[in-house]
């Protein structure tokens, strides 16, 4: 055990830090849940990609940098620490990207990964259906094989930013009459294909953050299937594991708001200390975010020694989603009467950072598999309790 960085790691960190200092937009980009904001984020992604920072842990041939996971953690620390823009294409890059790297054919990798790294292709997930939320295996959207194509019919929902995206990926029932986890195939679908209709869903904050996707005899070539016919569940589970696990929510994603929370506390110490539970909560946020970071480095160490991530990824997801709630609730408590203000007003730039974060944190225990489902998974798969 040696918890210090190598000279190479240190110089990688400095290099990233300098590039970000020179390139991160001075003004916060508008939300990527609007079309304009989405395209500005795409531009930023292209810039990142040109500098080789889009997907640092992918192989160079696919637009990455060939870094290991420690470098990735370092990159994330610098990225969040610099207050750089949210990663608009991460559902594709992190979830589908990891899946393609593991299960994709050489042709698929060559076709999809470079354009994903550069965000020339923007990706949306198509997992959920109206009757397949927590019960993810209850999928009814169909993909019938017809020669060298699948014909897709059905409906997906909660597809983040699908109205702006170029492609979607998800599971479809490809074996007639199959049930639950069986007979599903993992397909990639261009969203401009004939028969695709996308309807936005207005989120809590009024933005079109999600969408429903309707498939009406949509033709998708067999080459757009990842993994074997009917074996999509296996492929998807690997992807879901990535999502819950380390990749989607790197520790820096929480350490940065904690750093700002501590600053908010320090700036308002006289007032905040009148209720000592505030300071206690701030210290707990720091300690939890630090623990999550330690856990990530520890996991990376074990992965590098050949271990696999199992149901721990479910514990991770519960942990960071609850931490995120605590961070933002504590900030709201410190802000007091001005916490409810939207950014549009006279007082509210700092407030809006926290309010937006507070709203988004509310979704954390729900998306990527509800925390109730995660706890079931831990109990059943890690502890061996009966279903």
């Amino acid at each position, binding site marked *: 055990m040696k918890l210090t960085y190598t000279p190479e790691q240190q110089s990688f960190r400095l290099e990233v830090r300098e590039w970000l200092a020179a390139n991160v937009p001075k003004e916060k980009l508008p939300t990527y849940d609007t079309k304009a904001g989405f395209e500005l984020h795409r531009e930023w992604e292209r810039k990142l990609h040109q500098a080789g920072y889009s997907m640092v842990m992918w192989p160079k041939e696919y637009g990455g940098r060939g870094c290991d996971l420690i470098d990735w953690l370092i990159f994330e620390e610098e990225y969040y620490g610099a207050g750089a823009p949210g990663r608009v294409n991460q559902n594709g890059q992190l979830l589908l990207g990891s899946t393609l790297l593991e299960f994709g054919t050489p042709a698929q990798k060559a076709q999809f990964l470079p354009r994903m790294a550069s965000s020339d292709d923007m990706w949306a997930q198509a997992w959920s259906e109206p009757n397949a939320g*927590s019960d993810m295996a209850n999928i009814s959207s169909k993909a019938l094989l017809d020669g060298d194509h699948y014909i897709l019919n059905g409906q997906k929902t909660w597809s983040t930013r699908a109205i702006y995206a170029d492609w979607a990926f998800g599971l479809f029932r490809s074996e007639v009459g199959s049930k639950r986890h069986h007979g599903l195939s993992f397909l990639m679908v261009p969203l401009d294909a004939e028969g695709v209709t996308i309807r936005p869903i*207005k989120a809590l904050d009024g933005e079109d953050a999600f969408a429903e996707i309707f498939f009406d005899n949509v033709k998708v070539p067999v080459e757009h299937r990842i993994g074997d016919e009917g074996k999509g569940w296996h492929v998807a589970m690997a992807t879901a594991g990535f999502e819950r696990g380390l990749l989607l929510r790197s520790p820096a994603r929480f350490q940065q708001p904690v750093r700002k929370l501590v600053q908010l506390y320090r700036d308002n110490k006289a007032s905040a200390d009148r209720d000592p539970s505030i300071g206690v909560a701030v210290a707990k946020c720091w300690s939890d975010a630090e623990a999550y970071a330690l856990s990530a480095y520890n996991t990376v160490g074990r992965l590098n020694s050949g271990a696999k991530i199992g149901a721990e990824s479910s514990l991770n997801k519960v942990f960071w989603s609850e931490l995120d709630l605590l961070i933002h609730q504590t900030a709201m*408590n410190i802000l007091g009467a001005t916490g409810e203000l939207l950014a*549009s007003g006279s007082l509210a730039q700092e407030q809006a950072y926290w309010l937006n974060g507070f*709203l988004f944190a509310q979704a954390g225990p729900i998306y990527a598999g509800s925390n109730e489902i995660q706890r079931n998974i831990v109990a059943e798969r890690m502890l061996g309790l009966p279903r």
Partner: protein
Amino acid sequence: MDFTFTEDQLMFREAISRFLMTEAAPEKLREIWETAEGRCPELRSSMATQGLTALSIPEADGGLGMGDIAWSLMTQELGYYGIPDSLADTAYVGAGLFSALGDDVAGKNDYLTKICDGELRLAIGHQCSPLVADAHLAEVLLLQHGDEVHLVPRDNIDEVVNQSIDSSRRLSQVTWQPKPETCIASGEAGAKIWHETLNRGALSVAGQLLGLAQRMLDLSVDYSVQRKQFGKAIGSFQAVKHHLADVAGKIEIAKPVLYRAACSLENNHPLTDVHVSQARNFCSEAAALAARHGLQIHGAMGYTWEVDLQMFMKRSWAINNTWGDSIFHQARVQDYVLNSDADLAPSKTFEGA
């Protein structure tokens, strides 16, 4: 010792509840949320017709002569139906403030009568917040300047309006000049008025939060009975049951705390400050858990604009730190327990410090 409401109080609550159920259905709230001002004058008028604006007004002035105890029921109804109106600030907190003024204050009775008739819109600026709610529509503002109470016509202020996460709320930064002619109370009397006004405002918020909590619980129970996953209603899963049972627990325990605080305020109990803050803390906790678990049970649906839950969640988040923020109210209770030498024997529950 009688910890119950009168028949009159309960019947009035029931009548208001039935009225708001039809007059302020969620579709109506959505309409109001879309307006520029976030408020609906017709709704205020119709609430006045029901007698709500007359609740606090002395019978001598044509009102119903009820007090904080009755309002602890009514504010729950305003919360439950998510009423997008400053009615409580006007007809409860504002009426209380006017009533506390000396009889020599010019126009005092006229204002009370206008409140009673539902004709006055006012806004109150207390130093507990840099923001004044509903200043954009107020005819007059009651503004704090140290111990002084100023009654300021809208024309005499400048305001910058802010939007809230609750689309019906407008919060203004108000700039104004205290002048002798607008001062209607000062010194000890003014300080006492502001002190009591803050307590009344906090109790109004507490009641609304409790009503909101109950509404969010009811919506979540309904949803959990209808929504199916894994082949059965999600309400049959133990995790969902326990989430909702915990919300019910927070609501039930908050009720007597709210009612006691109202009784203390109405009767000038020496520990009113502590009781009001305690009530606000319990109601706040109930609303926060109802929002959190309500959203959790609604899943992604709860995170949409379309499903009603969002309106009640946002209201609860928005008003939670008004009329004294969480820090203020927690600190008042903590100070009493930790830094006073109060005798906390079991026999002291209803006694003064």
